[in-house]
């Protein structure tokens, strides 16, 4: 059953085409008259030559070698792999959205501007923030935008604050972003409850603190219960509080980062607001801020006066532009469609069911796997494979064994504070039957890990390729095909 799929470059015949252009209908001049020979390409251009049918078969074959949310359960912790409603795709494909040019005169894009304005109004209400920018196109891009604004805010007050505090359970993007924005990173330990160690936090806070980046609920799926005390301590030290919105799916309609004391929030529209992940992107890292940071938001914002919507560039304290045009507008269309469909009670039900599904699954699994933080969770929870590890079966082995049952595995080895971590986020769009079947398989794998560890360590057995040699890939990088190699 295992068989590699040939590359595009290994297929086709010279002279085949998958698309034909209309004939050139203007008088044609010799190319050398328009493009001097010295400026013409001299390198060969070795691209595949295939008919349209061959191209479709190739990519259809590749698609069957790929697992998406539509293929099956995808409890990848921290990634909120919920069902992606199809109406979202229809909306974004409307010609007035998909074929509008970002540099058109504002009078010709009033619908797009109105959509951005209305999406901002809704997200302000959902998060409790004062203004929203849709410019950042990914969570990490939102973090960078947020930290740039925090830097600008402190500089505007003539304060030199160069440290960003990050819990040890934080997403890797948090410290990477802080460094990219020119800050020094200080790690804050978690306490034995899996929450921020407040004493350690208070010791780290000082006149050099620019911000604390926090995910709430955190990456263990636990709500930071002392959030108000944390916020007060950070603010008292003169720092700002940054909300990594990767986990907003847990609390919509129940609590808002704006009411918890957060000054800057980024949202992953591709997580909480149901837009698809596209095999790695595009996403949207929409950012919300409190009033005091509004002057620093990137250019431009969307404004409205009596007659029309407009882009507001007249914002002298702004950090400037962070994207070529207006962010991933097409992704915002999808998220806006979702918000329109769900409404207030719908979004609250989303969070209720996401949290219920996670707690239910946690209660089913904690007898077969170690649960290091055995308390109420929010939308996700983290198990440890430490018991299985004693038999030589790692979290990664368990992940690979799940592949044979048609599941995408949980996130593994994250957060770093849990040994052999398996981070499970079922989301609200999964049925009880799916959770029960998954739990049954997880129990079965736990039994196998005890009775027949070798079977688990050799998994997967049924996928199109077996475990791949990652060390070889990194030591002898082959990151492109070359005709001379084949």
């Amino acid at each position, binding site marked *: 059953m295992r068989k590699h799929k040939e590359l595009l470059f290994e297929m086709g015949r010279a002279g085949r085409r*998958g698309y034909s252009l209309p004939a050139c209908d203007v008088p044609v001049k010799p190319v050398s008259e328009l493009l001097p020979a010295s400026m013409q390409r001299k390198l060969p251009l070795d691209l595949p030559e295939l008919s349209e049918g061959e191209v479709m078969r190739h990519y259809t074959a590749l698609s069957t070698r790929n697992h998406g949310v539509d293929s099956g359960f995808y409890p990848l912790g921290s990634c909120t792999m919920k069902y992606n409603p199809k109406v979202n795709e229809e909306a974004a494909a409307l010609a007035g959205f998909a074929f509008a040019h970002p540099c058109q005169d504002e009078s010709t*894009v009033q619908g797009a501007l109105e959509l951005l304005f209305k999406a901002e109004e809704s997200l302000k209400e959902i998060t409790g923030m004062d203004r929203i920018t849709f410019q950042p196109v990914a969570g990490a891009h939102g973090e960078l935008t947020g930290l740039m604004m925090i830097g600008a805010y402190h500089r505007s007050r003539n304060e030199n604050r160069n440290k960003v505090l990050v819990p040890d359970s934080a997403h890797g993007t948090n410290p990477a972003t802080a460094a990219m924005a020119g800050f020094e990173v200080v790690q804050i330990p978690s306490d034995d409850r899996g929450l921020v160690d407040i004493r350690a936090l208070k010791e780290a806070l000082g006149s050099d603190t620019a911000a604390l980046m926090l995910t709430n609920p955190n990456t263990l799926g636990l709500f930071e219960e002392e959030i108000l005390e944390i916020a007060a301590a950070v603010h008292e030290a003169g720092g700002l509080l940054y909300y990594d919105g990767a986990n907003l799916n847990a609390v919509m309609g129940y609590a808002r980062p704006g009411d918890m004391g957060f000054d800057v929030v980024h949202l992953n529209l591709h997580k909480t607001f149901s837009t698809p*992940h596209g095999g790695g992107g595009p996403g949207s890292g929409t950012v919300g801020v409190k009033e005091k940071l509004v002057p620093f938001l990137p250019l431009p914002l969307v404004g409205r006066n009596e007659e029309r919507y407009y882009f507001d560039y007249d914002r002298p304290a702004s950090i400037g532009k962070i994207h070529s045009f207006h962010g991933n507008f097409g992704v915002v269309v999808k998220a806006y469609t979702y918000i329109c469909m769900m409404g207030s009670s719908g979004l609250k039900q989303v969070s209720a069911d996401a949290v219920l599904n996670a707690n239910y699954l946690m209660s089913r699994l904690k007898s077969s796997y170690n649960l290091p933080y055995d308390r109420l969770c929010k939308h996700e929870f983290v198990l440890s494979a430490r018991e299985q590890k004693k038999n030589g079966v790692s979290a990664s082995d368990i992940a690979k064994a799940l592949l044979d049952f048609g599941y995408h595995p949980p996130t593994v080895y994250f957060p770093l504070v849990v040994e052999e971590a398996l981070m499970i986020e079922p989301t609200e769009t999964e049925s009880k039957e799916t959770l029960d079947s998954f739990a049954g398989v997880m129990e079965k794998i736990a039994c196998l890990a005890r009775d027949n560890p070798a079977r688990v360590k050799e998994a997967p057995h049924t996928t199109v390729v077996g475990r791949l040699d990652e060390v070889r890939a990194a030591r002898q990088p082959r990151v492109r095909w070359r005709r001379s190699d084949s």
Partner: protein
Amino acid sequence: MSGRHYLPLTDAERKEMLSAAGAATVEDLFADIPANVRLQREMNLPPALAEREALLHLAALAGRNKNSIDCISFLGAGIYDHFTPSAVKHVTGRSEFYTSYTPYQAEISQGVLQAIFEYQTMICELTGMDVANASLYDGATALAEGAIMACGSTRREKVLVSRTVNPFYRQVLGTYLSSRGLQLEEVPMLDGETDLIKLEGLIGSDIAAFILQRPNFFGILENVDKVADILHAKGALLIMSVDPLSLPLVGAPAEYGADIVAGEGQGLGNSPSFGGPLLGFFASTDKLIRRMPGRIVGETVDKEGNRGFVLTLQTREQHIRRERATSNICSNQALNALAAAVYMACLGPEGMKEVAFQCLQKSAYAREKISSLGNYSIAFNGTHFKEFAVKVPGGARALNAELLKSNILGGFDLTPYYPELKNTILFCVTENRTKEEIDMLVRVLEGWR
């Protein structure tokens, strides 16, 4: 409640599951959120719409936007009206691709991984470079990542950028570099091209890289024959931002000694989408691979020797290296990269050349026609690809308003970004424009003033 059909749990199941989880009510599940941060009211959002109502609402909003399907577009400036073959949308519309996450679990992600490996290969072929990554956000941030990479590689803190580079890209560069304490200096232009004499004077041992766009923002193919040599002699790198659809005809960055290539790939099978999602493509020499930002897919084998693909060189990345990562990027524009790959697979080398050929011919035809009108002149002398700046007899906004009456989306008004260029418009003519449409543009120009 309208979105109910996305939520499979029934009330009976909810009750059963709550009790299994040891909770009496849903409220109990939120008991860990202190009362003083709980939202004590319902969120105030517009009433939920049913799918049909939502679509009508969205269609009404979309209907208030002019676009390049309903109008004849001569607007470019980094986002282009190239034709996308139907097959592209049918591939990117396969939900095994578009509903998947970053391919962390390689065994069940071979589809996306192989498609990206093929995409990387195609970007290398087009640019002539050794290695390419799996995508960055857009042309502007790709250039910023390239500048940061050059600073890291040369251990220098100053980057030069030509004034002929897309002004939006220069703004983003400024934002990114200044936040890290890196410097950006602009190299002046002369007749729409980088002033090479001034450039030479600016290149010292403190310069990490020089950024050049080709074709530049005015559509001109600048002479870069000696630039790389001058830079390399001083230990600096050449970063080029290129239009991928020019490359089948125009000299590739590798032919000019570029070290880093970063550009916008929207024209390769992606719709303009009001400016996003876009496709930042990124390529470099082999030497720089371990400093590259973003995901990279590599080839390897399983235990039985079957070929397979994995995310590789991950020790560069944020989830492993945290604050020492080469970039913070996590989500990228994978689906747009897939679209680009399918586009290139459909067109093939001959189709790609034909697109470039028609852009070159049609924009030359439009240029000639416009310059033959008495009071319009082509702003610059250089060799043009598909865009060109025109000095017009009046305000650009007023002219565009006139063009709109004939259902034409006019050119890009250059004056706000180049105050030295009064009443100057940048027109773009792609393979999609017919002779009839170009003639119509010319007629409206002729009749105006």
